[in-house]
């Protein structure tokens, strides 16, 4: 948006300074996740078990808080439930600065303590705070904030850290290699830990039945922090409670794999504090380590509410509390891979799920700052070990931002006329244009080619960029003069009569297929008819995907109702619904669950197929592949022969229909290379927006790297992918169905 030019600038700057390090690390973690979870036989069962435990725990939270109070106190510790950050900090500083008169507190990395900014509170009372996680310590030395919930300093390169240490510590022999840097930090931190008075940790989980906490680290800093100091303060959000110690088990197997691809982290501490180790006295170190007086330890569990109990009452934000902070969603996220958490995050949390956290803890304003970096590509959904629908939370928050920011004084009358919808009047222009793409497309098609010529004209593009934030470097879709539905009717309907047909299918003429990319619709009709399917192409409303992407939930919901109304009779008549645009199929299968009665959603979801999935199914059931177009017959764009480069759509992959195209193409004899990036970066309309143009192109960069010099024929199913790949490779890919459909 033009009013927001600084956002684009900041993103560009972060991509330039931190982008490379973030990309390398997150992609490495993400790849590690695939490999490590792939080695689990029962991955999906573990995820279901983990989710079940969280659902139960959050439902019973008040009861678990009382239980843990009893168990921790029975062990000799203290529990304090803090309402908010100030309350928690008051308790912690009183304990540390006053009661203990501590000079130094050593801290093991904890996002919850970042959330309450306890370091600042302690330092204000004269207590030195030292972060002991190596990455966190680097940031402390550099006076920076974490950019990732698991690996806080991934945006820093080794060279950057070496420079930092050389500058800050001026050592005789400046450390350079990873090994030297690590040993340098280990030594300095070792001394600081030994002399510390209080140790602070977070907790990954706390079991109510025993007061046992689970701490996951690789470095061993949490172990040292707890062992070396006689006072242990654990800071954890109330949502970290689970009923029993046995409940830790699935999380232990999931957390490292999900986050960094480690099967387990080096150390999984299960502490039931005060812990049983003697307190080593490093100041008088000629005394025995274990002097038998092991009872002088003190433990405080500070459970933090800070908005969480309210989130629990909020049907939409509640799922955020299931989050185990593994970071899988961040690592799987195309945008995060490009800009990292310094752009894609709020005061504390970053990445896709940060919207839920920040909205619940800091408020909508903070969440609004980065919420639109979630493009809804959905690649985080299968990555999340507790099955949180993260894009949905982002959509809900976006909707609330839309409504909350709506200024009743601003009438926006002209626009209200052009694109009436269910949303409040104050929505900004680019949101509204994208959200009402269907209306625009209908109008564009009706007035093509004038609309096309207009939309290509420089002054119009400049205006669109300035007023509506649509980047002028993007080619705008060219509207077709004759929509698919009209073409089909003019041709006299299906060439396969219903009586002779193997099956009957309704081809869903989505907005893009109907008004813009009519050719792929025609190809789909030919392919289905070649396999003896009686096809219908009724005039149906848009799926609601564009408004949903803008957080216009009410508009999307009414679209869902209209689509279902239009399809219900077909579904009742036993016809299959075949969908060309993957993001629309993903709507039918996933998001419509939120909009339609359960039975309606189930019926529609069960009857709907991706066009390539459908072709695949027909071939599996005996249809003859030789009725489709094999590579040998290829001329023109397929002249390159059998070799195909295929980019499956992000949402198609999430709902598990990305690979059918590969299978069909291979069955016909094509040699297929599949892109291994999570999302092309266009993600619906995201890449059109002026502020995000460079980011979008950067997210797509791996596709250019993989397919850039290829002599392969590039195919892609999504409309947005098509636009993006055209921009990246200078060549418009075709839909896989266009490759395999017989010629006219």
């Amino acid at each position, binding site marked *: 948006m033009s009013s927001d030019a600084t956002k684009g600038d900041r993103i560009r700057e972060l991509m330039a300074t931190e982008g490379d390090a973030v990309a390398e690390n997150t992609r490495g973690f993400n790849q590690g996740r695939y490999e490590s979870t792939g080695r689990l036989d029962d991955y999906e069962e573990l995820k279901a078990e983990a989710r079940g435990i969280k659902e139960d725990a959050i439902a019973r939270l008040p009861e678990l808080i009382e239980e843990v109070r009893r168990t921790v106190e029975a*062990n000799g510790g203290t529990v304090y439930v803090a309402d908010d950050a100030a309350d928690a900090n008051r308790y912690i500083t009183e304990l540390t600065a006053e009661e203990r008169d501590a000079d130094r507190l050593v801290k093991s990395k904890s996002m919850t303590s970042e959330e309450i900014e306890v370091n600042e509170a302690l330092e204000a009372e004269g207590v030195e705070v030292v972060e*002991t*996680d*190596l*990455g966190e310590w680097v940031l402390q030395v550099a006076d920076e904030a974490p950019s990732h919930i698991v*690996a806080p*300093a991934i945006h820093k390169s*080794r*060279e950057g*850290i070496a420079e930092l240490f050389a500058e800050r510590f001026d050592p005789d022999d400046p450390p350079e290699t*990873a*090994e030297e*840097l*690590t*040993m340098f*930090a*280990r030594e300095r*931190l*070792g001394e600081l830990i030994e002399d510390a008075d209080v140790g602070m940790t977070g907790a990954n989980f706390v*079991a109510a*039945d*025993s*007061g*046992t906490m689970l701490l996951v680290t*690789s*470095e*061993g*800093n949490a*172990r*040292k922090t707890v*062992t070396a100091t006689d006072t242990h303060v654990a800071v954890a959000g109330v949502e970290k409670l689970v009923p*029993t*110690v046995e409940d*830790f*088990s699935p999380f*232990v*197997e999931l957390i490292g794999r999900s986050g*960094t691809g480690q*099967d*387990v*982290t*080096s*150390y*999984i*501490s*299960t*502490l*039931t504090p005060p*812990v*049983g*180790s*003697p307190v*080593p006295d*490093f100041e008088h*170190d*000629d*005394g*025995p*380590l*274990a002097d038998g007086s092991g009872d002088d330890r003190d433990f405080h569990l500070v459970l933090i509410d800070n908005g969480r109990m309210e989130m629990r009452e909020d049907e939409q934000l509640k799922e955020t509390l299931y989050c185990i902070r593994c970071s899988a969603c961040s690592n799987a996220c195309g945008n995060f891979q490009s800009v990292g958490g310094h752009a894609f995050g709020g005061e504390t949390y970053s990445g896709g799920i940060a919207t839920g956290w920040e909205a619940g803890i800091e408020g909508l304003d903070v969440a609004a700052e980065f919420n639109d970096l979630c493009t809804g590509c959905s690649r985080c959904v299968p990555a999340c070990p507790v099955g949180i629908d993260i894009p949905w939370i982002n959509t809900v928050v976006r909707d609330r931002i839309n409504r909350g920011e709506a200024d009743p004084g601003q009438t926006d009358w002209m626009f209200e006329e052009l694109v009436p919808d269910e949303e409040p009047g104050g929505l900004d222009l680019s949101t509204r244009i994208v959200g009402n793409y269907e209306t625009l497309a209908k109008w564009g098609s009706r007035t093509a080619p004038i609309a096309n010529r207009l939309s290509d004209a420089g002054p119009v593009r400049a205006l669109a960029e300035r007023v509506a934030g649509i980047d002028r470097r993007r080619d705008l879709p060219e509207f077709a003069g004759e929509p698919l539905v009209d073409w089909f009717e003019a041709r006299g309907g299906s060439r396969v009569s219903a009586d002779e047909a193997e099956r009957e299918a309704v081809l869903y003429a989505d907005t893009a297929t109907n008004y813009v990319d009519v050719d792929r619709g025609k190809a789909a009709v030919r392919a289905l008819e070649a396999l003896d399917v009686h096809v219908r192409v009724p005039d149906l409303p848009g799926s609601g995907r564009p408004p949903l992407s803008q957080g216009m939930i009410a508009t999307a919901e009414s679209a869902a109702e209209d689509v279902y109304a239009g399809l219900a009779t077909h579904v009742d008549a036993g016809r299959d619904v075949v969908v060309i645009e993957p993001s629309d199929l993903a709507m039918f299968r996933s998001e419509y669950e939120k909009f339609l009665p359960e039975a309606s959603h189930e019926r529609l979801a069960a009857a709907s197929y991706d066009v390539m999935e459908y072709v695949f199914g027909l071939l599996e059931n005996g249809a003859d592949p030789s009725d489709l177009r094999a590579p040998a017959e290829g001329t023109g764009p397929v002249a390159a022969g059998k070799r195909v480069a295929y980019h499956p759509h992000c949402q198609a992959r999430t709902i598990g229909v990305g690979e059918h195209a590969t299978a069909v193409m291979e069955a016909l004899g094509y040699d297929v290379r599949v892109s291994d990036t999570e999302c092309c970066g266009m993600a619906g309309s995201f890449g059109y927006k002026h502020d995000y143009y460079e980011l979008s192109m950067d997210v797509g960069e791996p596709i250019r790297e993989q397919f850039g010099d290829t002599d392969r024929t590039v195919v892609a199913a999504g409309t947005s992918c098509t636009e993006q790949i055209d921009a990246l490779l200078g060549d418009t890919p075709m839909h896989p169905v266009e490759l395999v459909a017989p010629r006219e």
Partner: protein
Amino acid sequence: MSVADRSTFKRRLDSLGVTVTEGPESECAELIDEAAGDPAVGVALDAGSLPDRIETDPTTAELRAAHTGVTDAELGVAEYGSVAIEADGAGTEPVSLFVDRHVVVLREADLVPDMPDAFEWLGPRARDESTDVVFATGPSATADMGGLVHGAHGPKEVHVVLLREPGEDGSGESDATDPEVSADE
């Protein structure tokens, strides 16, 4: 404990860079002696004995100066190559942590197949005895400084002494039934 668990455990340790030696309980002290550097501190074992050169009642200074720490483990988790070390009044936790090499003694009988078994073992002990256990898997590690480095805060190396069950073939020797486990991970 099945043969499969033992070989899974050893294969896992191998892939983590953890060295393993095996023998009957009677050879425990020798196996430790071979594995431990110098100076070494330790905590008295439940099963098997320590070589004399291990300081079992160290001062804090001796702990600080030690190269190796020797402790036993309560449990091993075959599927992950993890060993469960319990914090106790004798100092098992600091002895296993503030050193460069941790030599850990585990009885084969204390090997369980997988994590759910480990947490079923832990649950009652946590509830009834307030135990503190760390499941340690390989050496301390960090990738925060631009590359994987071992020994960030804890030990750089780990060695496991696996004590065989005397019953198995009468001698404690079980190599005959032990499938080859190196280099196939």
